[in-house]
């Protein structure tokens, strides 16, 4: 079984500004190399991120969970302003993408983002087609500025 190893991990929500990296997870989390196929699935599925300017808080979870290489998945994403904890309105939009920077390629699919309500989005068409280190990009577009929060995951 191939499964997602993520910075969100099994415990409570983790907020990382700008980019969540494997090394950023709490010390209690297992290292990437210690994740074994027999491990039980993590209890909590939501992962929280923030952009580097700390303007937006992004909370997402995948379906199915965990994300596996070569298997399509969708995301449910909530975007809120960190200062007020209020969900973003129509003045801002969300784009989601993923890439393998070392391989210099992205996904072979084009994600489709649908706004479900204030600050709530559904992303379909995600497929990380090979194992290795992936970066998932959550780009919040407001006016002329696009702010990015990055989530790093390793697929076995």
């Amino acid at each position, binding site marked *: 079984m191939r499964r997602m190893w993520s910075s969100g991990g099994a415990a409570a929500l983790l907020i990382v500004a700008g980019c969540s990296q494997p090394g950023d997870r709490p010390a209690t989390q297992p290292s990437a190399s210690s994740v074994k196929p027999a491990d039980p699935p993590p209890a909590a599925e939501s992962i929280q991120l923030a952009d580097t300017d700390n303007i937006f808080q992004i909370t997402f979870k995948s379906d199915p969970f965990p994300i596996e290489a070569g298997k399509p998945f969708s995301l449910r994403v909530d975007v809120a302003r960190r200062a007020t904890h209020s969900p973003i309105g129509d003045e801002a939009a969300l784009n989601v993408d993923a890439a393998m920077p070392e391989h210099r390629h992205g996904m072979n699919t084009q994600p489709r983002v649908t706004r479900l309500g204030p600050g709530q989005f559904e992303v379909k068409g995600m497929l990380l087609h090979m194992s290795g280190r992936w970066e998932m990009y959550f780009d919040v577009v407001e006016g*002329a500025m696009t702010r*990015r929060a990055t989530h790093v995951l390793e697929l076995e």
Partner: protein
Amino acid sequence: MRFILKGGGAVRRESVVGAVSALAVFLCLVRPAIAQEEPTSRPATAQVNPVGTATSAPTTRPTAAPAERKLGAYHATISGLLDPGAVAIDDKGRIYVAESGRHRVSVFDKKGKPVRTIGRKGSGDGELFCPAGVAISTNGDVFVSDSGNHRIVVFDRKGQFRLSWGGYGSELGRLIHPMGLSVSDTRVSVADAGNDRIQVFDRRGDVLRHFGEWGANPGQFRRPVDVDISRGASFHVLDRDNNRVQAFDPLGKNPRAWGGWGPFPDMLGAPLGICLREYRLYVADTANHRVQVASLNGPAVFQWGVHAFMPREGNGKLHFPNAIAVAPDGTFAVVCEGFENRCQIFGLMPPGESPPTSPFVQNDPSGQSHFGPSAGLSGNLVALTEEEIDQVSIHNLLDGAAVRISMVGQHGVRPGQFVRPSGLDLDVKSSTLVVGDAGNRRLHIFSLKQDPPGQLRFIPQMAQLIKTLDFESLRRTTPELQKRPVIEPTVVRRDELGSLFVLDAIQGVVVVLSNDFKVLRVWPEASVGPPWIRPTDLALDPSGETVYICDGGRGTVRSYSLEGRPRDQWTAPELKSPGGVAVKSDGTLFVSDEFSGRIFKFDANGALLKSWGAEGLGAGQLYRPRGIMLTDAGHLLVVDYGNHRCQLFTVDGKFLNMFGAPYFVRAARSGGLDAKNVE
């Protein structure tokens, strides 16, 4: 002489002689001309049969064409040019080269022998600044895109000024940085590059039609650089930053495209020139170092050109070809390489043979160091654009040597991806890199992971995108920018407070952004137009009070207050075309000269202290030097753009070291151009 105000406020100037001739042209305009078939600008009067003799042009395209003899056999080189930007061939086989660097059109016979020149440097009647397009009408009139003056200038067949029209602006009839153009019996089609549109004029300069706007959708352009017209009056537009050719019907509608960025057949790399001859479209596929030949509806049928890897290599090999023209009888073609200051003449291949093509269609993405013209420098790090692959390389300077430690971005239109990355600002204190993405009209801001001093390794994820600023969105919401077409960030510099100074070299505009990316100032005002002809670089003095701008077209460096008020200017008789400027804390100015291959050192009062360097390949010699910056160690880093390398000097001109493309560095160190020295 008379001056006529026309629609949009554009100014037309014409001589009395020109006015009489223009009247005759006007009488021809009574007929509805736009939708009907008409001869093309670069008149197609004959077709070449299999044995190479000219025959009458067929009235219809042959259904079973005889075996096509392909162009691509190298014949001769016209050397000694200065930045040839465009080329056309008349029905007698004479070659007209728009020499941007000499601000004139140079005419040669079909063997490359000089015949005469047309125009001279300036902004008056019959004068040109950085011409970037030329076309010949059937009656021999010479139409020139006078890019630096943002207008079209017409000369008669003897080279006498007839009329001009246009002027800087975005209103209909006005132009910003016009480039390629095409002339028929009744109309003049112009690639209005700075306005991202095609404007179609009658032969007197009145607007008949316009189409296109900035964007990547069908019918939109991102820097249209050339246009030609088929016998059926359809438009073929070279859409540079979308890396495609778009064809339109005679009304400028129903676009269809071929191309896409890449090295393979049918794909293009920042193409700059097209020529339509009979049922073939010839494309100067610039960054792929080749010519692609396509059918009118695409795709490419064949290609020619072998990438010139050796320094200054020619004799049929190509290096950044930027313009092409095919003789009306189809027997020869001229390919210009502004980068190499030359044009090459190619004839027909023997029947049944194909021209040579390069097995190396594009540089290895791992990096061959085709450095772009500008650099970002901070601490021990230097960032350089990689022109052919639309990436940014980061190097660690070690005692003058340099080790590439990361690559940033890749070609594309998404955040963190680039099309023609141009401006760079690097700051190791805040660990940020700002990339001016000219083709996408964006700024990308990256955070940098830095290793501790002394540790040296390649860091694949050294730069992580933080945010992207989109100038098209900014323009829509910012009153100061609404009168402008989209801003193209060519040069980016940051002051001590974090304010960003963005120079758009096409529009001739400086946009000042606060450290939270709000527009603070835009200068000069849109109604005034740019005071520079071909701005190439912007620098800030260390005190943060003065802005310096290289006016490449006029050969000066000018200084301004932060609000854009003019202060001083620096020039020297030998300074031909400043390509970069750096300022020391005591006000000493260092200027690279693109056309002489020299570095000039001025004091704060404008006195020339010394100059050094020469055009060449050796250590301390330069070829088309551009970006110049002061290192923390007090040395000068010069982007030796034409030699694909950087050189380091003391501030008194002593050569220290160089790094960059292996062929060019090894050749210099070995003292020669022999193959044994560069392999």
